[in-house]
């Protein structure tokens, strides 16, 4: 009369259906999540691309303007260099020297200026030491000359002359 209720079976059924339900729900949810994430990633990718492009444009602009400046400043010498390289005649070697001379002299002057500034700074910082060194050299020179050691005396004299040339600034 009374059917035996198979609780175990019902339990299993319920579990099964619950599992299925959960799985389907999870699938649905995960699809949503994925879709959201994918969309965000794509947006991010676009933003990064835009930034990289603008950055690249900026860098290349600066690079080109720097090259322009370099070309402008060395325009003369490069121009003459290229022209004169095409002239491969011994009789025109003199012309090349005459044309290059003022450019070379300008370069040497600039180099000398830079070096002299460094020397001046050095002299100011070592002034005391130089003056004392000068006195020491002078005393040594007097002794060597007095004792008849001419070679050593002349070497010291040369050193003194160089030092005096520098110290003239201080006087």
């Amino acid at each position, binding site marked *: 009369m009374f059917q035996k209720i198979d609780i175990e079976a019902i339990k299993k059924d319920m579990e099964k259906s619950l599992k299925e339900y959960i799985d389907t729900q999870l699938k649905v949810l995960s699809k949503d999540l994925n879709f959201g994430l994918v969309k965000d990633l794509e947006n991010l990718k676009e933003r990064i691309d835009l930034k990289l492009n603008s950055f690249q444009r900026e860098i290349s602009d600066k690079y080109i303007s720097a090259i322009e400046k370099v070309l402008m400043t060395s325009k003369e010498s490069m121009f003459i260099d290229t022209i004169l390289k095409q002239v491969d005649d011994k009789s025109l070697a003199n012309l090349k020297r005459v044309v290059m001379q003022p450019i070379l002299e300008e370069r040497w002057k600039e180099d000398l200026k830079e070096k002299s500034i460094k020397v001046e700074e050095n002299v100011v910082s070592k002034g005391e030491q130089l003056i004392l060194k000068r*006195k020491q050299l002078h005393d040594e020179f*007097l*002794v060597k000359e*007095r*004792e*008849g050691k001419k070679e050593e005396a002349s070497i010291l004299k040369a050193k003194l002359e160089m030092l005096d040339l520098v110290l003239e600034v201080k006087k």
Partner: protein
Amino acid sequence: MLFYPIEISQTASGGAWSFNSLDISGGEIEQIYVEASNGALDATPTTFDFYITDSKGNVIYDTQQKGIPATGTLNTANEVEFKPIPVMGILTLTVANSSVATETFTGRVMVKETKN
């Protein structure tokens, strides 16, 4: 008689100067005259020490031996006990401890050269 004056015209630096004479073949120092430029005029004359060194490093004349520095002008002609100093070779004349650091000095050391 051959007189050879070792001329002095120096400006002190740090209260001192020194220089070498020419090579003296042989002679005697007859007189030493060293004058500090303000020595004659100023109320406070410059004091200094003066000495002569020979080619072997001997100090053959030195105002410091007396312990009294020269004042204003050093003139051995005024010193009763000064005797001629025989010299040979290169001499170094030195002024040290000048009371005025950048004083100018003039004068001469008169050498009587003896011919051999």
